[in-house]
Structures are given as structure tokens and as C-alpha cells.
């Protein structure tokens, strides 16, 4: 059991703090929602009802979609683009999908390579892009969830203010949807872009996300 915890500590740590942060968000969001409801002389809702609301769902989904967009774009961009000096980048000159030999595909697979890497054909093509496929499904799925929960919230506000409601497609084209979407995207792009550039010159000893402390500033794709 101790070994299991040790070997999986990175994902377990993030699983625990993710759940803790989600519960904290739900408690704070529920309190805020009911404070606003009382200020507007409308009815409050139970915590359980709040968890099932578009209000909470929208707040969660708009952050999820931007995180997975970040992963999706970063994975795709790092196939073709490089940043000299960054541990997150391949060395200049290695741009592109690389050869079958470098990627250990088909006859170049190792004994313990995944079966679909060795299989060839469609299975290897799918497996070669499986990370991007799954990240894309999660991104588009959570972006859709953001759109329908945001649509519900928007129309509820419109009804409260005796204004016309929108269709889903109308909402997709609205300033409300794009403001919520782009405020998350800009922060992800800022974080990734700055991290790629900053890691060329700064170090964190012992981290897999940093070059070794003594690595040269110009060395690229080297992780500690």
C-alpha cells in the first residue's frame, strides 16, 4: 500500500487537492448564490440543489474547457514549433512527427511497447494520436457543457429582467459566452507561453519540468 501511494503520489496529490478545491468552490459558490438571492428578495436553494444547478456547472465547466484546450494546443504546437532553451520543447531541427524508428512504431517497437504501437495500420495511427484525441474530446465536451449551462443562466436572467431569451445558437454567438470563454483562454495562453520562455533561464532543482540547475541556457528539451 505504501509503495502504491509512493509510485502514484503525483496524480493522487492532484486528485486530492482537485476534490478539495471543488468542494471549497461549491461551498463558497452556494453561499454567494444565496446571499445574492436574499439581496434580490428571491428564493434561496439548498446545497444539494446548488450542486445540480447550471450556476455551479457553468463555473466549473468554463475552467475545465480552458485547461484541456491548453493541453490540446500545447501538445499539437510542440510537434511543429520549438523554443530554444526550453525543457518543454524539442530541440530545433526535430520538428514534425519524427520517424517510425524514433517513435518505436511497428517493426521498431520494443518488447514492452504497447500492442497498438506495434500493430501498424489504423490502430497505430489512432494510438499515435490518442492523447490529442482524448484531450480534444474533453475540451469540446466541457466547452459544450459550459455553453448549455451558460445558456440556461443567461436566459434565466433575461426572464427575470423581462427581456427576450436566446436560442442555443444565439447564445453561442453572444458576448456573454465569448467573454466567459476568452477570459479563461487568455490566462492559459499567458501561463503556457511565459512558462516555455522562462524555463530557458530559470531552474527548479529536482523538478521534471525544469532543466538541471547546471544545464546551459541554450540546451533544449533537457529535463532534470
Amino acid at each position: 500500500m505504501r509503495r502504491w501511494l509512493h509510485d502514484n503520489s503525483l496524480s493522487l496529490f492532484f486528485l486530492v487537492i482537485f476534490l478539495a478545491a471543488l468542494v471549497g468552490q461549491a461551498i463558497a459558490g452556494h453561499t454567494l448564490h444565496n446571499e445574492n438571492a436574499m439581496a434580490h428578495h428571491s428564493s434561496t436553494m439548498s446545497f444539494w440543489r446548488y450542486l445540480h444547478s447550471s450556476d455551479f456547472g457553468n463555473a466549473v465547466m468554463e475552467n475545465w474547457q480552458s485547461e484541456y484546450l491548453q493541453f490540446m494546443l500545447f501538445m499539437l504546437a510542440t510537434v511543429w514549433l520549438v523554443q530554444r532553451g526550453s525543457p518543454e520543447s524539442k530541440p530545433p531541427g526535430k520538428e514534425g512527427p519524427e520517424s517510425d524508428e524514433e517513435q518505436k512504431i511497428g517493426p521498431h517497437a520494443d518488447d514492452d511497447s504497447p500492442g497498438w504501437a506495434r500493430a501498424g495500420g489504423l490502430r497505430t495511427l489512432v494510438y499515435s494520436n490518442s492523447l490529442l484525441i482524448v484531450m480534444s474530446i474533453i475540451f469540446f465536451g466541457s466547452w459544450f457543457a459550459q455553453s448549455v449551462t451558460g445558456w440556461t443562466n443567461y436566459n434565466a436572467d433575461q426572464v427575470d429582467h423581462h427581456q427576450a431569451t436566446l436560442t442555443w445558437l444565439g447564445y453561442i454567438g453572444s458576448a456573454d459566452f465569448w467573454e466567459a470563454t476568452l477570459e479563461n483562454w487568455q490566462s492559459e495562453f499567458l501561463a503556457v507561453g511565459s512558462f516555455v520562455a522562462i524555463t530557458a533561464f530559470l531552474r527548479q532543482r529536482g523538478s521534471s519540468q525544469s532543466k538541471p540547475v547546471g544545464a546551459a541556457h541554450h540546451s533544449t528539451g533537457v529535463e532534470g
Partner: protein
Amino acid sequence: MGAQSDDRRLGKAQPGRTHAAMRVLFWTWIVLITAGLVFYSVVGLSHH
């Protein structure tokens, strides 16, 4: 002797168990994410 005990400690002799533990976490994350986005898609759509 040292190498043998290191191998046992590092679990190299038990790749099946190592993979099983990794699979549990892989599916935990996938199920959690899928449940979240499907649930809130249904929540958003059900109010229309």
C-alpha cells in the same frame, strides 16, 4: 544481492501489478472528467 533486492523493492518483477495500479488512476480520472461534463451538459439542457 543488492541488485536483486532493489529490483523487488522497485517492483520490476511485478509489471502486472504496477500496470493495474496505473490503470486504476487512469480510469479514475477519465470517469471523473466524463461524469462531470456529461452531468453538467444534461443539467444545462434539462432546463430547456
